[in-house]
């Protein structure tokens, strides 16, 4: 069973507010991914890290989204100014290896609702 921890499980924000969620990857997993799963269950990759270094990120995360994985602290994903379209389940996953064949272990997600 996955031991990726995500907090909080539920987050409710007003439009324009900041929304911050955290992820503790499985022990020994240096690679962390953030995905957005919308109400139609579609996954969208946001950003990934190896240790503290960003590996890849999509354009969306370069604007209103910020993320970091500091040493000895939980990883975090923050939306600077929430919009209604940001309402989704945000999934964190971790992996032992950055290579494509490596299994990703998912946390239960943070469900963000933007009113």
């Amino acid at each position, binding site marked *: 069973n*996955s031991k*990726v921890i995500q907090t909080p499980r539920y987050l409710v924000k007003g439009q324009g507010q900041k929304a911050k969620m955290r992820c503790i990857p499985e022990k020994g997993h240096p*690679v962390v*991914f953030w*995905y957005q799963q919308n109400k*139609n*269950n*579609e*996954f969208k*990759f946001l950003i*990934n890290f190896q240790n503290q270094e960003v*590996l*890849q990120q999509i354009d969306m995360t370069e604007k209103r989204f910020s993320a970091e994985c500091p040493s000895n602290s939980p990883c975090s994903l923050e939306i600077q100014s929430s919009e209604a379209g940001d309402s989704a389940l945000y*999934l964190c996953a971790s*992996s032992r290896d*950055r*290579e*494509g*064949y*490596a*299994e*990703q*272990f*998912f*946390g*239960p*997600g943070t469900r963000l609702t933007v009113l």
Partner: protein
Amino acid sequence: GDSVTQTEGLVTLTKGLPVMLNCTYQTTYSPFLFWYVQHLNEAPKLLLKSSTDNKRTEHQGFYATLHKSSSSFHLQKSSVQLSDSALYFCALSPANSGTYQRFGTGTKLQVVP
């Protein structure tokens, strides 16, 4: 670009019947294919993975064979159970094209008594 297609949004079956969930992919790189299962309010969990052409891989009664000639990785089970009701996602990780996985839109499997 790299993508995954799952054609069925919802599959409803009676317990005990066989199931096949379709997955096709598109990539110019050598592919790694995955099937994940997501039960209600739970995290997605890996069910199967493969990168070997024409080799069947099995886990927990589910099986799939990667066919590079048809770019497919269909998920099958010979006899579904009520506990199999969940969302099933096919995902692609193209070699040499970044580490993140491209997910299909998912198929909801509903098993009824």
